Structures are given as structure tokens and as C-alpha cells.
């Protein structure tokens, strides 16, 4: 097969003409990514939720219970809503209108004063996950602080100094260092992988569509004629156009995240450029593989859609891979996003550099071998056009 620059140029010009005439290519890539960027960045702009509604059912109505409610209300996470009865609060908890319920039993103040240890109970709804988990953390903190306050009063009455009191109330403290996201910002955590995931999806779908459209509109023979009969030339020409388009989107995305939005990054933004371009190339390999195996545009697109949606779960950035059943864990390596994520961990979280992520580079480059296995098949389909067109 002879690959000539002249033919490649012809293919590139032909592809640009198609993109210009069919708005779907730009709609599906640039507009989609722009919408997703705006959506995710504005959706998580708070970083950490605040003012989560926490119900307080106060059966005690004492100065202690009121001050507890006020203190809970003044935390950044919580916003107290008072209920008269537990039943009303419970119904709203089931409706998901509140994240949690604190029940202050009758006579709590009197019992605390008399050392009778009244029991404080709280309920959380963690089916609404982040809200429930954060409310749990908030209430737990406040109860422990309330306990500390009671203890301090007792110790003060015994005549201990403040220094001695602190040592007794809190013999051990933890200081926490969150490596890679010291703000515990959900936006940083999720958008870092969600946007590249969207990009992976876009690459796969657009490329399958582009290669499938040649079959669908019966233009594949013209494509091969333009390329001088060489499948490789045709693919190289097409890939140059799309790689430039997607790389531009990918680089803008990286600059958007780590430069304009100031997402924390321990390593270098230049290495993330390498990461995103490798992911785009790997995804292109997958797309060609799918359309080559199934040269029927509708089936290839359905399979591509099902595949790329799974990529989000199997990258393991929300629920780590090691919790999944072993036969699913093996599947994860078949998704470029998984390798993008592992690369990202090394570069963005730990700043480990080449020593940390060189293996992922190899893994992503392996995806480039996929098209070779189906090229003859795709060429045959392009020449014979013997598959259903739709």
C-alpha cells in the first residue's frame, strides 16, 4: 500500500467539506462539549453543599435544646428546620425533603443536669447520598461538641485550668491532609473525570458516525477512489481531521480545568496534554474497531453508545474498581477512560511524572493496534457495500 501525501490531502479536503455541509459533526462535538463544560462547572460550583435541611424535633424546649439547634443551624453544612412531631419529620424524610432528623427527648436538660445521661437519637436518609453523608458528619460533630461542652462545665466546676481541661476533653486529635484535593471539593473530584469521559464518548460516537456515513450514503467508493484505493490513506486522512478537531477540544478542556478554573494539580499541565491526546487517539482506535467489526451504521452506533456510557462506571473514579466483581474488573482495562484516570491520579493527585504514568501511555497506545485487525474487513465493506445501509 502506498501512502501518498497528495491523496491524504485530497481526503482531508473532502472531509472538511463534509463537516462544513453537515452541521451534526460540529453540533455533536464542539457544542456538546461546550454544553457539558458549562453544565458540570456551574452545577458543582459550590464545591461542597451547604445549608442542608436538617430537621430538629424538640420535645424538650429547654435552653440546652434550643442552643443545640442554633449551633447546628450555624454550621456551614446545616440548616435547621423545626418540626413539632416526629411523624411529620419522618414523612418529609421519606419524601427526601430533609436530609436527617434529630430527636431531642423530653426532659433532656433536666436529665443532663442530674447526670442521668439522656439518649439523643438521629436519623439520616442516605439514599440521597452526598446530602445524607454530609448531614451525618455534621450532626456527629455537633453531638460530640455538645458532650465536650457538658464535660467542660463539670471540669470547670472542679477547678481545673483551661489547659488541663482541653487535655482531658480531647486527649487525641487528628489532623487530616487531603492529597490532591485539600478543599474536599466535589466539583474538582467529579468534573476532572466527567468531562474527559464526555470527550471520550464524543470521539467514539462522532468517528463511528463519520465512518458509518460513508456506508450509509454510499459514498465509500468515492472515498477509496480519492485515497487512491488505499484504506490506510483514507483512514489517515480522516483521522488527521478528527484528531486535530478533538485535540483542540481536549487541550481547551485541560486549559479550562487547570488554568482558568484553577483546579488543583500537583504535576504539570503539559503532561495532562499528553494524557488527553493519548485518550483521544485510543478512543479513535476503539471507534474504528467497532465500525470495522459491524459495518452497519445503526448497530455500530448503538454498540458505541452502550460502550461509552459504561466507560464512566468502569473508569473507577466514583466506586473504585477493586469493589467490583473480578470478572468486571478485567473489563475495565478495555476503556481508554480508565487509563486516562490512572494517568490523572499520578499526574494531578501525586505529581509523580513520567515514572508514575509511563505504563498508562503504553496501555493507551495498545488501543492504536485495534484498527489494524479490522482494516481489511472495513475496506471490503466499503468496496462491496454489502451490509444493510441504515
Amino acid at each position, binding site marked *: 500500500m502506498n501512502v501518498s501525501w497528495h491523496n491524504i490531502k485530497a481526503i482531508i479536503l473532502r472531509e472538511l467539506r463534509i463537516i462544513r455541509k453537515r452541521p451534526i459533526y460540529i453540533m455533536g462535538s464542539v457544542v456538546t462539549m461546550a*454544553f457539558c463544560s458549562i453544565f458540570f462547572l456551574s452545577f458543582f460550583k459550590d464545591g461542597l453543599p451547604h445549608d442542608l435541611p436538617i430537621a430538629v424535633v424538640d420535645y424538650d424546649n429547654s435552653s440546652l435544646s434550643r442552643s443545640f439547634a442554633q449551633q447546628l443551624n450555624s454550621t456551614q453544612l446545616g440548616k435547621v428546620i423545626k418540626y413539632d412531631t416526629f411523624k411529620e419529620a419522618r414523612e418529609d424524610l421519606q419524601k427526601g425533603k430533609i436530609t436527617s432528623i434529630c430527636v431531642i427527648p423530653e426532659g433532656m436538660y433536666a436529665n443532663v443536669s442530674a447526670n442521668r*445521661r439522656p439518649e439523643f437519637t*438521629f436519623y439520616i436518609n442516605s439514599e440521597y447520598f452526598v446530602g445524607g453523608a454530609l448531614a451525618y458528619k455534621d450532626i456527629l460533630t455537633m453531638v460530640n461538641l455538645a458532650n465536650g461542652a457538658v464535660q467542660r462545665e463539670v471540669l470547670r466546676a472542679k477547678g481545673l485550668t483551661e489547659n488541663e481541661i482541653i487535655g482531658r*476533653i480531647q486527649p487525641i486529635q487528628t489532623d487530616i491532609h487531603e*492529597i490532591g484535593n485539600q478543599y474536599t471539593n466535589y466539583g474538582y473530584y467529579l468534573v476532572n473525570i466527567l468531562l474527559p469521559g464526555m470527550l471520550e464518548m464524543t470521539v467514539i460516537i462522532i468517528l463511528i458516525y463519520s465512518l458509518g456515513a460513508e456506508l450509509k450514503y454510499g459514498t465509500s467508493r468515492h472515498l477509496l477512489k480519492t485515497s487512491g484505493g488505499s484504506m490506510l490513506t483514507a483512514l489517515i486522512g480522516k483521522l488527521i481531521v478528527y484528531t486535530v478537531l478533538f485535540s483542540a477540544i481536549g487541550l481547551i478542556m485541560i486549559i479550562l480545568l487547570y488554568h482558568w478554573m484553577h483546579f488543583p494539580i500537583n504535576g504539570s499541565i503539559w503532561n495532562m496534554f499528553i494524557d488527553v491526546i493519548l485518550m483521544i487517539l485510543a478512543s479513535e482506535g476503539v471507534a474504528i474497531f467497532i465500525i470495522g467489526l459491524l459495518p452497519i451504521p*445503526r448497530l455500530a*452506533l448503538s454498540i458505541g453508545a452502550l460502550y461509552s*456510557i459504561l466507560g464512566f462506571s468502569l473508569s473507577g473514579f466514583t*466506586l473504585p474498581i477493586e*469493589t467490583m466483581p473480578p470478572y468486571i474488573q478485567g473489563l475495565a482495562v478495555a476503556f481508554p477512560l480508565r487509563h486516562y484516570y490512572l494517568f490523572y491520579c499520578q499526574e494531578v493527585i501525586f505529581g509523580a511524572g513520567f515514572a508514575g504514568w509511563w505504563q498508562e501511555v503504553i496501555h493507551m497506545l495498545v488501543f492504536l493496534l485495534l484498527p489494524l485487525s479490522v482494516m481489511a474487513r472495513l475496506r471490503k465493506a466499503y468496496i462491496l457495500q454489502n451490509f444493510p445501509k441504515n
Partner: protein
Amino acid sequence: MKRNSYIGIWFRDFMDIFKHEMHLIFTDAGVMIIFFLAGLAYPLLYNLIYLNGLLEDTPIAVVDNSDCAESRRFINEIDATRECRIAYHCISMNEAEKLMQERKVNGIIYFPEDFGKKLNRLQTATVSLYTDMSSFLYYKNALLGTNMVMLHEIGKIQIERYAAMGYSGQEASQIVQAIPYEDNNPYNNAFSYRFFLVSAILFIIIQQTMFYGMSLLVGTAREENRSFATLPDKLEGNGIGRVILGRGMAYWLIYMGIGIYIALIVPAIFGFPQKGSYIDMIILVTIFVTDCVMFSEACSSLITKRESVFVLFLFMSVVCLFLTGTSWPVFSFPRFWKIFSYIFPTTFGCRGFININAAGGNLWTIHDQIIILTIQTIVYYCISYISIYIENWLIKHKKEIKETKTRLAAKAGIDLEEDKIIIAGKSDEN
């Protein structure tokens, strides 16, 4: 059947359209893949992926510079929690950092040299925790494990110290914990990732597969120069209602089957909490599926090409997942996206499903969601009605529109014929 009464004719047209649509669905391989492969297999696949749903025994490295009895007890207790596992004892922080970077551990616990001394001096001793934030679950586990052990240790040490001061037994525990507490997490006891996430995904599968499948058919019809909105010939311009309902009926029947499978059978297979009653769930599924049918009919009228729905709208599945509010709380939605979320049936369908299934609610619990779903159904019916009306007007006035277009193009100096050749790619045939 009544012969020629209005109802009789209505019903006959309705049945014809219904049968025609059924025929279209079952003879199209693409739609069959979306409806039956995705609709039936995806719920199972997602359940398998999230089968455990819990991260346990996160590996932690320990750097113990104090090497005292208290630190050793602390370490053993952390190892004993469900959340954490002590994987390595390291000599120095450098060694631990390297393990973390190699991802052999997801957290480091560091005891400074003075840990034991400070405890003996009745001062506050510090433990440092370093966590890997690449997934929040690592952070959650390391934090929860350490905090629980810390609270437990604090209680123990305090009791010892008060004993030294002369308080013991009941008296000491009265001071240490004046207000004991009890936490209840009734709907998702272990903070399982599976229950909240898969619950939301299940209903999104219903809406999205239906929308994609229907759009495929609408796009095909348009490509073949038919229209999804063709009315029965005998009634000029009338009968839009029976077209919408007749087509909808085909999807409704298929999706009542898939919907009940997804909402009742899949959760039963995978041991989800099913605290609500079956009747309530079936009512919710009925309302939700009806809404999805109308939503899909309204939205798919925008689709002009068969495959374009995947290229243009695939990303909406992920957006819909976040708009359900099961992960990021609704209370923190920016105002615009909160309003935006009212477009989708899943926003309310998922919440209804969770509130019945996990929280054990009844129809009263989800009456807000039911009302909104019903309003959506009516609105989307009206939008479908309008879009079919416009479509028919366009079909009837095709000639006039074409003439106007040619006239305008001639004025602007555009050659429409050449445009068409380039777009359809027919010039490339020779």
C-alpha cells in the same frame, strides 16, 4: 365494534396506527437492540458492576515514630475496622509516600514521636492522616475508620484519666459522655453506593432507551420521505389525537413490560430493599412510562436523521443522572439547573422510585412527584400535538414552501441543486 360512529372510526384508526407502529418497532434491528438488549441487559449489568457497592478494607500505611502502647493499640483498632486495613508498617514518611504513589495504599497514618509522651502528660496528642483524594470513597473510609477509632480511644483514655482523678464507673461515664447518641440510617444502612446509584440509573434506562428507540424510528421515517405524523387520509387535518395515542400505545405496552421488569423484578433479583407496596410501585411505573412516552414523542419530533439522536443526545443520560439529585443534593442545585431539571421525567420518576422502594413510602409520600409527572404528561401531549400539526401543515404545503425557497435562493444567488448533491453525496457516485 360500532360501525361508523365517531368512536368506532376513532378506535379503528387508533388500532391501525398502533399495529403499524408495532410492526415498525419489531422489524427494526436497531430499535430492538435499544429496547430489548439495552432495556433488559443494562439493569443487570449495572447491578453487577455495583454488586458490592461498598469499599471495605482500604489499605493504609502506618508510620509509627512514637512506638508506644497507645499507638500500637490505635493501629490494631484501625486494622480491625471494616473501613481500613493496615497494609504496611513503614520506617519513614518517604517510604509511605512512595507506597501511596504506587497506589499500594490509599492512606497514611502518621504518629509523631511525642504521641505517647503527650498522652502521659495529659495533653492533646496529634495523629496525622494523609488520604488519597483520587476517589472520595478512599477518603471517606480512611476518615471514618480513623475518626471512629479516635472517638473510641478518647473515651477509653478519658475513663482512665478520670479514674486517676478519683471518678470511676458510672460517674466517669456520666462525665465522659453526658449525652449518649444513637445514629440510624434506616434506608441505606451501610452507605452502600449501589442502592442510591443503581436506583437512579434504573429509571434513567427506561426514559433514555425509549427516547433513543423512538427517535431512531422517527429519523428513519423522515429519511425515507415518510413522516411520523402521517394522518389517516379520510379525515383531512383531523385525528392528531389518535396518531399520538396510537403510536404511544405501542411504546407504552412494550415499556410497561420493561418498566415492571426494571422497577420490580430487577430489584428483587439483586436484593434491593423493597419496602413499598407493589401496587404503589405499579401505579408509579404506569404514570412514569406514560410520561416518558409523551416526552419521547414530543422530543423525537425534532430528529431528522436516523443516527443523529446518538450523536446529539447521548450525553444527556449522564446529565439526567445528576439532575435526579440522588448524588449531588437538590438543595444545592443552582437555580437555573433546578428549573432545567423539570424538563425530564426521570428527575421525578427516580425520586418517586427511591422514596417508595427504599424509604417505604406510599402514594401520599410521592404525591408531589406524581403531580409533576402528570403535568409533564399533559404538557408533552400538547407539544406533540402542536408538532404533528406543524408537520402536517408542512407536508401539505410542501409545494408552496419549495417554490418560495427556490425563489428566495434565486434572489440570493444560491444554487440549491448543487447544495443538495453535496449534502446527499450523490455526485460522488460516478
